[in-house]
């Protein structure tokens, strides 16, 4: 296992950087494992890492149809936070944020975690009251939340147009422990640490079928042959239903698009994460200087991995309303992720009706911040064959039981969550 340190960088510099080796092995599939994780994104790799690290289950394979980290892990806006209203959600996301805070030490890999603060702006009395309620709910759960007035917002991000004629800013709710992390490094870091603990990471291995006997999972068929395991965890985001269809079970998920954009590179101008309250828009600045921003869903089911101009126009309009200085910039790139949207906007980390088949799914457009928490809870659920109290509410049958976790109160419309 290559170890990284300042000394190593110095020493390799003196040796012409010839000593660096790949950070994980390109494994070939074995005929059988104790656990197979389908999906080599952040959630799948984190599941494998925590299975090995916390539960001592090291005979694990992660199957990825392409290259690791090239699905939604590489298609997000890298924001990390735990500012939720419902106790079930804020407990889980707080666990995830705590894992983020120690992640670099756990993995031995720099994921460039930056707790630069996340501010949600509000523009009217009703939004202020909702922000106060959410902030109080967070504080009751032991999570940091702070209500800012206009001067507080101005101090955090002077570029915001507080006196916008149509949407004047009244204040904001800030979580100072929130921030951003480097998305690719998260996948690579989990791969690095999982591989070092014996996990096989198998790329270019697409699952094409499930082997199920007497209601229990036996293994999977893949483009690289049959691989058997008594326990299988799914972590495949927008493609969850493709796999659950193979297993013959139905899950309440629709697949939707979410776009994001990055501008040309600039000198530092926004040193926190800001979300607009009068339109769906959020922005931060990457360490390379590009402004990274996004909005809401395109609004209809799609597996297309590419957005349309309708939502792009809304995002740019909302951005320029909030920070007029953005009007001079050009967007350099845009991309879209394939989201597994649930009817109530909350995830599933749970057992399924097939014995031995587990899933972490339904992350809607908030999966990145959940990466370590999702992997941690999914690994627990796989290892113990029962959910941890932190993910006990994230079941597949909660909607049937009338226990929806609808953070926004939207009702059962995945495209509006």
């Amino acid at each position, binding site marked *: 296992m290559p170890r990284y340190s300042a000394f190593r960088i110095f020493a390799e510099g003196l040796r012409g950087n010839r000593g660096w080796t790949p950070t994980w092995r390109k494994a070939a599939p074995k005929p059988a494992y104790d656990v197979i994780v389908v999906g080599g994104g952040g959630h799948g790799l984190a599941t494998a890492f925590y299975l090995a690290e916390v539960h001592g289950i090291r005979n694990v394979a992660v199957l990825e149809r392409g290259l690791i980290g090239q699905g939604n892990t590489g298609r997000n806006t890298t924001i990390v936070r735990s500012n939720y209203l419902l106790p079930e959600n804020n407990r889980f996301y707080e666990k995830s944020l705590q894992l983020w805070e120690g992640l670099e030490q756990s993995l031995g890999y720099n994921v460039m975690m930056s707790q630069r603060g996340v501010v949600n702006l509000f523009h009217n009395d009703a939004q202020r009251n909702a922000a106060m309620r959410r902030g109080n709910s967070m504080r009751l759960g032991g999570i940091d939340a702070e209500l800012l007035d206009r001067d507080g917002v101005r101090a955090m991000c002077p570029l915001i147009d507080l006196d916008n004629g149509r949407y004047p800013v009244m204040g904001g709710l800030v979580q100072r422990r929130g921030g951003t992390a480097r998305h690719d490094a998260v996948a690579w870091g989990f791969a690095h640490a999982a591989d070092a603990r014996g996990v096989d990471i198998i790329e270019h291995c697409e699952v094409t079928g499930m082997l199920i006997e007497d209601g229990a999972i036996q293994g999977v068929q893949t483009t690289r042959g049959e691989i058997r395991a008594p326990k299988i965890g799914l972590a495949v985001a927008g493609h969850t*239903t493709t796999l659950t269809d193979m297993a013959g079970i*139905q899950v*309440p998920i*629709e*697949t939707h698009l979410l776009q994001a954009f990055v501008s040309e590179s600039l000198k530092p101008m926004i040193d926190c994460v800001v979300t607009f309250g009068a339109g769906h828009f959020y922005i931060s600045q990457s360490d390379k200087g590009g402004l990274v921003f996004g909005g809401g869903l395109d609004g*209809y089911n*799609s597996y297309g991995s590419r957005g349309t101009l309708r939502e792009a126009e809304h995002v740019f309009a909302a951005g320029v309303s909030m920070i007029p200085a953005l009007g001079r910039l050009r967007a350099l790139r845009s991309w879209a992720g394939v989201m597994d949207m649930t*009817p109530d906007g909350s995830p599933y980390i749970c057992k399924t009706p097939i014995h031995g088949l587990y899933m972490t799914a339904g992350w809607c457009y908030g999966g990145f911040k959940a990466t370590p928490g999702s992997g941690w809870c999914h690994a627990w659920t796989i290892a113990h064959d029962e959910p941890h109290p932190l993910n006990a509410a994230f079941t597949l049958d909660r*909607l049937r039981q009338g226990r929806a976790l609808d953070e926004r109160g939207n009702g059962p*419309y995945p495209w509006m969550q």
Partner: protein
Amino acid sequence: MRIPCPHCGPRDEIEFSFRGDASACRPTPGAGPDAFYDYVYTRTNPRGWTLEWWQHASGCRAWLQVRRHTVTHEIGAVTPAGPGA
């Protein structure tokens, strides 16, 4: 995307509002909780052709049943909503 409205001709998607899955049919009032659960929550989520409701909200305001491909975004048959639709 451009959706051919049967009343107004081909129009940009920006004029339309997505109104969800048109293959789900409301059960009869006495059908029981499982039938209503399926109606409200269960979706086939196809990677391919789907049948959807779209409303021409910024046009003639008609509700339309649209066949659309979820990977290519290609639009198939578009018919006005109505008895039998």
